[in-house]
């Protein structure tokens, strides 16, 4: 169970995230959608204690993440390529993560055999360092690494971006299984409404740091989201001006 209390993040006088309250029950597959700058990555970074909250806190399985490090053993994440170590081969990277998570080498090897399909023969035994893999293949490595050591919370930022169609479909299966069979809480953000409605039991829409929708996924959800975003995609003229006013200040800060 992840609980958010009065959480906000402010840079100078611009509030980029403000979530008074949010509960994510254990074993839920939770989807986060929103346009650029809505605060998705900010939320995930707060959840991983990579940035400090301005107010409030997040409680993950009874651990307040910005005061204790005890959330680390049961949490795994792939946000971007800064979660990869470029000079390692994929195998070395997996074993490294495995060792940090207290997994024997054989266990990691066993786990990897389940993802042979997913890797499509382009990851293991390729004599390449991670830095030399394509973006898509790097992403595959990062995603699979989060499954090592049976974490209870898995956080994936934009996992579908950069993946080829086959892998996208396989990844959807993997994520659904994780939540349904193993009781893992999966947090996913995506710009692809179709994928996210397919994979997630619950979808939260962020806009300018605020929760504007909190939907339990149903057959009508995709339509609802599409309707919302086609409206939100064209903000009223006054809003555009306000946004333009803010940006230069933002850059100088």
């Amino acid at each position, binding site marked *: 169970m992840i609980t958010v209390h009065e959480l906000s993040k402010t840079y100078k006088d611009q509030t980029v995230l403000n979530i008074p309250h949010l509960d994510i029950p254990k074993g839920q597959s939770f989807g986060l959608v929103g346009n650029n700058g809505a605060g998705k990555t900010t939320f995930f970074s707060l959840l991983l204690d*990579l940035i400090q909250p301005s107010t409030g806190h997040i409680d993950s399985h009874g651990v307040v993440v910005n005061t204790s490090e005890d959330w680390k053993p049961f949490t795994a994440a792939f946000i971007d390529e*800064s*979660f990869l170590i470029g000079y390692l081969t994929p195998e070395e990277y997996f074993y490294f993560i495995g060792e940090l*998570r207290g997994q024997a080498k054989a266990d990691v090897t066993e786990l990897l055999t389940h993802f042979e399909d997913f890797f499509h023969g382009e990851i293991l035994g390729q004599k390449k360092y991670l830095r030399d893999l394509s973006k898509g293949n790097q992403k595959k490595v990062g995603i699979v690494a989060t499954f090592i050591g049976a974490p209870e919370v898995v956080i994936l930022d934009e996992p579908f971006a950069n993946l080829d169609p086959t892998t996208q479909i396989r990844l959807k299966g993997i994520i659904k299984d994780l939540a349904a069979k193993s009781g893992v809480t999966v947090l996913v953000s995506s710009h692809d409404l179709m994928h996210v409605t397919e994979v997630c039991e619950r979808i939260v829409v962020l806009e300018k740091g605020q929760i504007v929708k909190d939907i339990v996924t149903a057959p009508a959800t995709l339509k609802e989201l599409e309707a919302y975003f086609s409206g939100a995609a064209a903000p009223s003229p006054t809003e555009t001006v306000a946004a333009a006013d803010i940006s230069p200040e933002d850059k100088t800060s």
Partner: protein
Amino acid sequence: MILQFISLEWKSFIRAASFQTNVAMKILMGFAALYFILVFLGLGVGVFFMIEKMELGDPFEVVNRYMIYYLAFDMVFRYSMQKMPVTNIKPFLYVPLTKNQVVRFSLLKTVVSFFNWSHAFFFLPFSIVLITKDYPALEVLFWHLGMAALIYANNYINVLINSMSGVFYAFVVTFIAFGAAHYFGWFDLTLYTAPFFNLLGSHLWACLIPLALLGIVSRAAFLYFRKNMYLDAGLATKQEEASTQEFAFLNRFGNLGTFLKNDIRLILRNKRSKMALYGGLFFLFYGLLFFTGAIEVYDGPVWKIFAGIFVSGGFLFNFGQFVPSWDSAYYPLMMSQNIKYQDYIKAKWYLIVLATAASMVLAMPYLYFGLNAYLAVLVGGIYNIGINGYLVLWGGAYIKTPIDLASGKKAFGDKQSFNAKTLLLTVPKILLPLAIYWVVALFASEELAFASVALAGIVGYLFKNKVFQIIEKVYKSEKYKTIAAYKQTS
């Protein structure tokens, strides 16, 4: 067009994330540059009279004789320090500019480099002195022109060989061989090169030779760049064939072993960290300056400790100094993984300790210079392990410049080493042991002075756990700032 490029350069400088440290660094670098300028200037004005006084022969000819070494040193210096102009080319590939324009600007940028114009501070005053000393003015002027052409030729040769490290190392080895042969009197290269430089000084037409050379190499550099301006050619990042390395023997150290394995891979597989390692090995020879009595000012006994600290601490200063920046590319991963800071920092500390211990063993040959010389290395090593090992890690917490592991440039005299807090930390790192030694040696004996410095190290070691708690606290309090800073790639 050029103006636009220049304005872009300016913006990339003032808008860099590390601008503030940049300015501090620029100021410090300014001082360093000023120092070099003064040295050059002093040399330019004084060398004539020095040679005259030492009665080595006609000063102009003596300078010409050694000019080949001057140029060779310039080459080495450039290769290791001068930045290549390829950065920032990629975005220009798609815009409506001809490739020739982009290449020309990139090469033009190197012309105004410090590495070129600093030489003027030597050549200008030297030429003026020559003329006032009644050397034929016109000939001197043309000699000057020829030398300028050679310096610029070096500039373009550097651009050309920059991607061919093999050629460079062959060049260095050849020159060291020639230098040694000269020193031991087997073969004197300068006998064959001096006539060329003398020719420059005596015949006006001779300056056409270096000018032609300059023309050829600048053209070659241009064509080379032009030809390689493709994403899969000159602008491509080189791929190496990866080999999996197990280091299974480290497994017994548990979590610590995991980090150690990773750090060893880090050092072996990245250009920048390899340079730190080589730099560390190079420091082993630093003691020769002190113990051979080659440099008079270093003869004081206090300097032995100074030497000892650097001989045993080469790796500590070259690598330890930049912890945790080595992990900057994947710092968020490290910070969200199931690890404790203490383990992370301790692993780095053990690596430094191991390397320092190894340096102490490798420094054995210093016994040749007497027991005291090696004792100084041992004592310096103990101090490094006991005190400096912590201090570099502590200082590292305040260094927030990400390291580009793939780039070997900027490995020396980097802005990363300059920052008020880290500068302040050099006091206990180097000055404190010198002071301890000096005071004890003054009132007691040299042996006791050695013992006191070593004792300081041992006491430091005993407080290991306490110190690690403090360092951990510093790392924690700096964590968010560090993550944010590492995101900004310069």
